[in-house]
């Protein structure tokens, strides 16, 4: 294994800066020195075959370089690394090309979003995608742009949706074959969400899938009849989907129905909000869907990366999807047809008593928001959120960035749609701040804490937990040497033993981690990068 990986490094070092073809994207894990997509691979596992950093030598990790972003926004992008060059995004929408070994900047492409841009929850971006010699970035004013990898020159720039109507894009695009796929955010402003594919060469729209079915389409009946509710029902996309080349299906987690906390104006299940959808990658046609939270009143959007793996399930091999949902349940589905296989809470849950055998949650009466407020676990930010989990085929464990013990009082308020205005219908209250907080933390553990929780996907049982003091917006990376990297609002970047959760190493990065770590190698040396605060840090084992 190790020798093969080393051999591949040498090969790629010779094949200097070759074009990233769609075949290379399909075989992303055959070139472990690179990180070619948001999740490192189409399967969304955030698991790297690199193994030079081990549980034994992790204590010798040391800082190689820092990139200081000229931005005070949350640094949520996962960088790509292609043959020694790193591409990342300085918030909101500046693309930066960096020498991955030294941290020196080659070029910065500066994009000025329209003043109409109004993303609800931060002027952020989660990273670029690559195909050929072109980078693709989705912008907070809802454009998709194509940039030359060599010099940051603009190739094309197309509007995806109207920022005036509340649309925004924060997602890292997903390139499949010759298309670039993105989904729209804006669910807090009464948008009608969609996922769309664009021709990578020209930017011409190839297909579009509305995440809320229109009149006459199946699922439309899950919205009130004779009402415009479906036109403003949200169902945004915040995180990149995954893709299975064998079924040619691309899977996307869909956001909450709007208004968030007042469901009275949208009685019904509200498809495809809070669902995962499986779309034909060539046509955008819906193959199947599974809804995690029918008629959601808590903003439990399914804004997570669907994680794909093949595993033995009750005696036979199955193509599954794992999904730790904001609503507090961990799910396993059959990804060929959406069949529900397992659903178990991974945090305290008080809105549902469980999932019935058909895969529908059994809601507990009296937990919907009221004018006076109702206390519900998990709180409004969920048991987890947009930051990526990881699955290690070696340990067989699924790792979840978790908000444990965390609740919110959900209050419902009257609401009326006005274009471009906030459309939420409530005010959740929690002692834990929703967005990135100031560094000082003197809350009590009862108020909620952050954790990495390792779950056995076959049973939904927790194998171990690594507790933080503050909550976490940090994604998780695992490697073929059973090292797990993560961090949180505490401001540490740390390495754990993926088998036991034991702490191997930590570094004080002086700011909250609100991104997923990633790893790459240049000339056979393994590096690991993470952003924290307004900076990007890169570590390697001391030589």
């Amino acid at each position, binding site marked *: 294994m190790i020798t093969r990986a080393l051999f591949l490094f040498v090969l790629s070092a010779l094949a200097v800066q070759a074009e990233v073809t769609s075949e290379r994207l399909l075989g992303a894990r055959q070139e472990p020195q690179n990180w070619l997509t948001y999740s490192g691979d189409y399967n969304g596992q955030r698991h790297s075959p690199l193994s030079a950093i081990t549980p034994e030598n992790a204590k010798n990790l040391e800082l190689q370089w820092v990139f200081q972003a000229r931005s005070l926004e949350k640094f949520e992008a996962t960088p790509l690394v292609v043959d020694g060059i790193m591409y990342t995004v300085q918030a909101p929408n500046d693309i930066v090309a960096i020498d991955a070994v030294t941290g020196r900047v080659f070029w910065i492409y500066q994009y000025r979003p329209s003043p109409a841009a109004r993303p609800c929850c931060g002027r952020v971006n989660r990273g670029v995608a690559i195909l050929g010699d072109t980078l693709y970035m989705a912008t907070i004013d809802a454009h998709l742009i194509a940039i030359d990898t060599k010099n940051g020159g603009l190739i094309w720039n197309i509007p995806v949706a109207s920022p005036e109507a509340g649309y925004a894009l924060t997602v890292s695009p997903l390139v499949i074959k010759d298309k670039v796929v993105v989904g729209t955010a804006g669910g807090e402003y009464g948008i009608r969400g969609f996922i769309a594919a664009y021709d990578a060469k020209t930017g011409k729209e190839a297909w579009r899938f509305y995440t809320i079915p229109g009149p006459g389409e199946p699922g439309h009946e899950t919205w009130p009849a004779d009402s415009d509710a479906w036109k403003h029902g949200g169902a945004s996309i915040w995180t990149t989907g995954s893709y299975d080349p064998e079924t040619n299906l691309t899977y996307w987690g869909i956001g909450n129905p709007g208004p968030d906390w007042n469901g009275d104006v949208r009685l019904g299940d509200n498809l495809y909000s809070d669902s995962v959808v499986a779309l034909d990658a060539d046509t955008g046609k819906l193959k199947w869907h599974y809804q995690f939270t029918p008629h959601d009143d808590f903003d439990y959007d399914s804004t997570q990366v669907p994680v794909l793996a093949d595993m033995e399930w009750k005696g036979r091999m199955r193509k599954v999807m794992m999904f730790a949902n904001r609503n507090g349940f961990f799910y396993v589905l059959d990804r060929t047809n959406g069949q529900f296989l397992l659903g178990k809470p991974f945090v305290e849950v008080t809105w549902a008593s469980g999932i019935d055998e058909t895969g529908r949650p059994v809601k507990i009466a009296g937990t919907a928001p009221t004018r006076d407020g109702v206390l519900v676990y998990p709180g409004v930010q969920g048991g987890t959120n947009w930051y990526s989990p990881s699955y290690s085929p070696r340990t067989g464990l699924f790792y979840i960035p978790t908000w444990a013990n965390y609740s919110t009082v959900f209050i419902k308020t*009257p609401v009326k749609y006005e274009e471009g205005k906030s459309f939420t219908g409530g005010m959740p209250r929690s002692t834990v701040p929703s967005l990135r907080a100031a560094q*000082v933390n003197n809350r009590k553990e009862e108020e909620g804490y952050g954790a990495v929780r390792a779950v056995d996907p076959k049973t939904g049982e927790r194998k171990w937990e690594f507790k933080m003091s503050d909550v976490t917006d940090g994604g998780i990376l695992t490697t073929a040497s059973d090292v797990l990297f993560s961090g949180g609002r505490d401001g540490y970047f740390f390495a754990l033993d993926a088998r036991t959760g034991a702490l191997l190493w930590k570094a004080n990065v002086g700011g909250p981690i609100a991104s997923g770590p990633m790893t790459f190698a240049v000339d056979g040396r393994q590096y690991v990068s993470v952003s924290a605060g307004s900076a990007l840090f890169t570590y390697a084992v001391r030589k």
Partner: protein
Amino acid sequence: MWRKLFVLVLAHGFALGSLLAQHSYTPADVEDGGRLFRTNCTNCHGPNGDAIPTIDLGRGRFRQVYSDTDLVRIIRNGIPGTPMPANNFDEFRATTIVAYLRSMAADEARPGALAGDATRGKALFAGKGECFTCHRVKGTGSRSGPDLTEIGAMRRGTELERAMLDPDAEVLAGNRAFRAVATDGTEIIGTLLNQDAFSVQLLDSKDRLRYLQKSDLREQGYVAKSPMPAYRDKFNAQELADVVSYLSNLKGLDLP
């Protein structure tokens, strides 16, 4: 607390217009309104709402007659062309402020409240009350309790009185005492300044900034009760009123 709401409803059952009648307000909502008022309004209107001439928000004396709906609108939209700013509150939150303003007037109307003497209060603070052993005012005294230099600008008379009579009734999150016991049994008491998965940062009772590693501690956590003694038996009603009067006059450093 429930008493406060009861008074609120009794005294203002009519004045609280249609908006408030639509909602049922829990005491927690009134408290929230108070918190919003202290954070967003007291710097201009004062803790009692009477700092701007001819406006007394706490007693419902405005420059013209306002319904609750009018007040909610003013709070949300501000008054254009004047320093009164617009506020980014939704209607519900703005309404909790109105509910709080109404409750202030109700509280104020307590019969038989004694007038205090701030000069006598100052002497009691330094002398008999021994308040400086824990509190700091304008650069003098201990740091183990909260600094009271601006307490008069942040708390109302009734709140100050409650803090002295019954310190355990409300300990604000930022004022909680923290106790750590090292593996060798040494006890450290102080103010928790910050914490993370591996360490705590304290100001200890000897005014030293301390970094403690959690792995070196046997025990650690907040002290549930306030370390402040109750002054119910130490001060008579007049003395209490005097100290409240002194504290109410503490509104920050005297700038040249």
